[in-house]
């Protein structure tokens, strides 16, 4: 399987084209270097991030069924680059797959657009975050063979984002029990050093940034601080919403937790891109709020830890 060409229907999500444009750009670059062909779903809509489901569950299910149906029209499985998209879409997919009558009911709303979401056979039609695709379909051996600049000595803390680790049953952990250690596997494959710290699978706080700013920023600040204390040179995350709280809000989070922070937070494609030899600038690392210069220096100087 690992040697086959990979071509996927690609849902980039909203934030990767909004406040984290560097994610969308770095994914395109990395996909090309890895030989993953992306067929972008430019007519697809927001996953609702759980917020639309909170308002009207059927609306969220139908909106995501539309995205799935658009992807299925291409004859390809789907890939996303956002833990939140993964979680919100998996939630809808779980309900749609559970019951044919409900699926038919939702598809009725799509019929006017010539669309229909069909439940795949077990593992037949999938929607996977780039992280899952990289490990399960692309393969770590194949990834290792592509590494041009091992991240030797770079100490990387994983940050998953809640939506891609919980609930385990919904997110396919029965079939893929190691999905909560994939970031570690990727970091290791790229030649980096794993930094384990308390916050790796905790909440970045972003969902309540507008509702309870202090709680939200305390979460982000605590995790960044813990990673620094554990010796991390940077964090890596497959979720752009986590990136907003961990990077864009980092100076504000520092005020709430009352300590200096200043830790680079990389998007997963950026970390992969660095190991593939891409220039940090091409990967949009200059757009980050927390400076990535330290990461670049460590890589160019080749200092071992």
């Amino acid at each position, binding site marked *: 399987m690992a040697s086959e060409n990979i071509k996927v229907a690609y849902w980039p999500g909203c934030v990767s084209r909004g406040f984290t444009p560097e994610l969308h750009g770095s994914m395109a670059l990395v996909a090309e270097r890895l030989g993953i062909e992306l067929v972008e779903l430019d007519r697809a809509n927001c996953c609702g991030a759980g917020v639309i489901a909170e*308002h009207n569950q059927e609306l969220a299910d139908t909106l995501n069924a539309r995205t799935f149906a658009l992807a299925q029209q291409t004859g390809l499985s789907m890939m996303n680059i956002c833990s939140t998209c993964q979680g919100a879409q998996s939630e809808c997919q779980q309900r749609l797959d559970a019951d044919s009558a409900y699926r038919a009911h939702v598809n009725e709303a799509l019929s006017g657009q010539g669309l229909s979401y069909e439940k795949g056979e077990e593992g037949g039609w999938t929607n996977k975050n780039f992280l899952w695709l990289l490990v399960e379909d692309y393969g770590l051996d194949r990834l290792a063979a592509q590494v041009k600049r091992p991240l030797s000595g770079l100490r990387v803390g994983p940050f998953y984002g809640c939506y891609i680790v919980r609930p385990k049953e919904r997110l396919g952990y029965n079939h893929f029990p190691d999905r909560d250690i994939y970031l570690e596997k990727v970091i290791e494959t790229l030649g980096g050093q794993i930094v384990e710290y308390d916050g790796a699978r905790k909440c970045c706080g972003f969902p309540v940034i507008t509702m309870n700013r202090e709680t939200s920023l305390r979460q982000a600040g605590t995790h960044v601080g813990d990673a620094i204390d554990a010796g991390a040179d940077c964090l890596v995350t497959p979720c752009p919403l986590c990136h907003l709280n961990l990077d864009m809000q980092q100076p504000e989070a520092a005020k709430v937790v009352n300590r200096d922070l200043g830790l680079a937070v990389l998007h997963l494609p950026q970390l992969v891109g660095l190991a593939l030899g891409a220039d940090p600038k091409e990967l949009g690392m200059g757009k980050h709020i927390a400076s990535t210069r330290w990461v670049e220096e460590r890589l160019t100087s080749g200092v071992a830890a």
Partner: protein
Amino acid sequence: MAEYTIKVRRFQPESGEGPYWEQFNVDLDPSLSVLDGLLQAKDKEDGSLAVRCSCRAAICGSCGMKVNGQSTLGCKTQIGEAQEQADKMKAATGVSAAEADSPIRGEGSDLGSADNPIVIEPMGNMPVIKDLITDMESTHWTKIRRVTPWLLPHGEPPEREYVVDPESMIDITQSMACIQCGACVSSCLSMEADPGFIGPAALAKAYRFVGDPRDAETEERLHDLAEDPHGIYDCTHCFSCIDACPKGVAPMDQIMRLRRRAGEEGIEDPNSGHDHEMAFVKIIEKKGTLDESLLLQESFAPGVKGKLKPSKRAIKEMLGSIPTAIRGIKTGKMRSLPKLIPGVHHKLPGGAQDDVQAIYRHAETHNEEFNLYIKGEEGELAEDDVEKGIERSTEPAGQEASNGQ
């Protein structure tokens, strides 16, 4: 039989010392529980090891604890699986829990298997009384009482019991499944950052009464839960409580139901949770993808353009976001008009926006909620039911009922 090393976080207040780790070697079948392992250690090695338990069958809810960091019931976690989890994390991270900074006592620390023990801790987000026994009163029960966990019917009580249509009670069976073990409270990442949060157990309990057709103060309850700044809009959607709950209550889902009900009542909350939700929903209807700057503006000051006087909170929040915006402009992250000016964001291309709007129109007339807990998966019984040989109570699909004997 297999040998395991369990590493227990212990604390005895009377000693005047802080908490410490102690390792015990136990010998039991992998299919037995972590609680069985603890009881063996207590029986054979140290009778003073304090653990609360009763039924040992995931019914009473007494033995809430953290196993390898996961909040759960000790009696519902097989010790063999707990060892596999510990091995997996060790292999992935290279970090063993035995490298924790606290001193380790006990003979287990001399043995080979001890470099990767099963780590057992008392529940989180609540004070520890002794070893694995936490103070449920000061957190869990206080929060449960906070939501008025009893029925508030109006009018003269009937002569006999209140009679309800069984169908109307199905919606709350999920929240009624709670056994008050506190595992969700222990796991709550929102409460970890904000101890004032009412929390998953109490809010699930609140939904049990909000959804009860016999209760006459639903609206008052919703106002209370939405208007408390540490209420339903303080949940961060982290799903920890869903994975922690041994009974499938999915407290977070109940919190989202409370938000939906509060929204339907049109309740405005001090956290702008409802405004945020409505802004999000409307933006996707108009644009298909998220206009982040408009979401920020509308979450704090809905319809601000038409208002002469936005609220104090809106002004404060909008001013507070200026430094972040300036930083974003400096690095180029936000250097484009649609990101800076609310409402400039593009629509979906080529008529796709009309398709999204058609979906909105359809869903508004239905707003169906499909509850997997109640309906189950088509054509197959939930695992638990197969184990117990129980027939599903609601018989959603014909096949299921016939398979369930």
